[in-house]
């Protein structure tokens, strides 16, 4: 029967081909392994292993006995745990609203209403404080918020802040951290959002203009919907980063002579567990809460946003 006769040999040939291809791919694969070897070792040592070790610590006690979820229950019941999450929650709400609204607004303004040369200069100037990220930015803002030396001292006094300790009252801390985060981070996001707006073809905006849409209308109905993905990207990254606050409250504590709560943020609480109580198991449990938050954000972005590629071309 011709069909069978015709059918079998190609199948055999296919099998042979596949075998040959697999062999050649394996041969090509070996150098691939060598090229990624160094990086993989680092990934295992400082990405995978610490995570697994933290999980191990969180489900055992200081004698290495398995304790199930007890460590998690313990830190959840700690009277400082929930307040520390409330603190960063307050901070996050303000920070996200501010960074998303202002960044998009400024990028739209820079794209549509400002001459290109000036727009470049402005983006650069907005971006420069990014160089001071971390300790330097907090120290600069300690000066900015100290009514005696601040260049905006009169403004602070007009709001009823006469001394540094009045400024750093507990209720003001989230606002202060938002200011610092915005000062160092917003410029970068303005650059990214501007770049995304730049990718919208001019014809689209031209068509909207011909149809009678004003600048604000086309910004609201066309530009912003078209960069939705980038806005979501920014919001998720800003959220994930914001859950990790440590340097800012820790330095604020140094500067305030310890008047600022030592466990203001969850990361600080984990730090206190590890360094003051020597309770590494509890510290690991807290840091796992934060790790899971970060993992969730990253997972959503990698699988849902379509902004990252894992397949070549």
């Amino acid at each position, binding site marked *: 029967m011709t069909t069978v006769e015709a059918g079998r040999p190609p199948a055999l040939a296919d099998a042979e081909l596949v075998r040959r291809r697999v062999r050649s791919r394996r041969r090509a694969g070996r150098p691939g392994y060598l090229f990624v070897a160094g990086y993989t070792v680092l990934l295992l040592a400082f990405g995978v292993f610490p995570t697994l070790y933290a999980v191990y610590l969180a489900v055992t006690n200081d004698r290495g006995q398995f304790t199930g979820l007890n460590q998690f229950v313990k830190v959840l019941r700690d009277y400082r745990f929930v307040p520390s999450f409330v603190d960063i929650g307050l901070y996050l709400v303000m920070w996200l609203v501010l960074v998303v609204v202002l960044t998009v607004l400024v990028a739209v303004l820079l794209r549509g209403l400002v001459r290109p040369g000036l727009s470049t200069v402005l983006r650069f100037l907005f971006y420069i404080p990014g160089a001071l990220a971390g300790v330097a930015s907090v120290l600069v803002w300690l000066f900015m918020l100290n009514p005696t030396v601040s260049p905006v001292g009169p403004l602070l006094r007009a709001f009823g802040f006469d001394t540094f300790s009045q400024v750093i009252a507990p209720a003001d801390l989230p606002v202060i951290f938002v200011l610092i985060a915005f000062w160092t981070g917003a410029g970068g996001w303005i650059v990214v959002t501007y770049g995304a707006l730049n990718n919208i073809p001019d014809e689209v905006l031209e068509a909207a203009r011909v149809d009678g849409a004003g600048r604000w209308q086309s910004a609201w109905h066309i530009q912003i919907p078209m960069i939705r993905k980038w806005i979501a990207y920014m919001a998720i990254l800003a959220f994930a980063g914001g859950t990790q606050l440590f340097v800012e409250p820790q330095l604020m504590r140094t500067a305030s*002579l310890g008047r600022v709560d030592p466990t203001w943020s969850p990361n600080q609480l984990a730090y206190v567990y590890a360094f003051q109580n020597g309770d590494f198991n509890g510290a690991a449990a807290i840091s796992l809460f934060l790790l899971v938050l970060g993992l969730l954000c990253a997972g959503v972005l990698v699988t849902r946003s379509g902004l*990252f590629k894992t397949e070549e071309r």
Partner: protein
Amino acid sequence: MTPPRVPPRSEATSRFVSAAVAAVILTALLIFFVLPAGWLLLAPSKTAGQLVQDFPLSFGSFHQIGAAWRHLASYQDGALFRWLGNSAIYSLGSLVLTLLVSVPAGYALALSEFRGRRLLLTVTLVVMIMPSATLVLPIFLELNLFGLIGSVWSIILPFSFYPFGVYLVYIYFATTLPRDLLSAARIDGCGEWQVFRRIALPLARPVIGLVAFFSFVGNWNNFFLPYLVLPNSEQFPIQVGLNQLLSSTPSFNPVAGAGLDITSSELSLAIVLAILPVLVLFLFSQRALVSGMLAGSTKE
């Protein structure tokens, strides 16, 4: 549907209002972003007293900058220079390691097939997007387990794990280097290593610069990890050193700062010195930087 014709006068008015609103917002933001940095650069030229009394954006004197410098240099027998040196060792050491491992890795992820490639890439992406601080405490616990606390390697090795760098190299090679070029070289008898050395590496210069920039800036400014794993002031990088300096400044800590020459003026000079390397890099690599921030994820 025909759009309503807007009378020209109101169109002109609305355009004027738009421009005015834009000008107000942008000016306010410009002041917000520039004023603190400007104040910081001027502060070392003034004494603590002048900082309180003089106009905030005035220049004091070069003499005072010199005085602040001498006070700062004599603080704990030149601790500041030790800290800056430590920062340089940590940042540059891990930069070299980062480049050595991430350039070949990104290259292989982009241009060769091997089992687990997809998995490695996905894990890289996830770790890259996760805030780096999430892993700091677990890394501290790990280093503690292996008794590495306080050694130089406890900083350099974790710093040199840089998934974002690998991703940048991967994207660069995946989008700019045609596979056919590599196949042609292989047919001509080049081994895999030679293909990498002779063809890929020379083309990779722009992305190497980009990875180096982000890695250096990130590590230079890092505070959390060294703060946890370095117990000894001798080993502090400048960021942790600034924290110690802050607690010795009488403007913030009248008790501990008493009798020391560290005032707001000296502290602000220390901040300027601490940010100088990064600031210089920022000023000279603006274009590369912007392209890198956008390359962080592929365009639509």
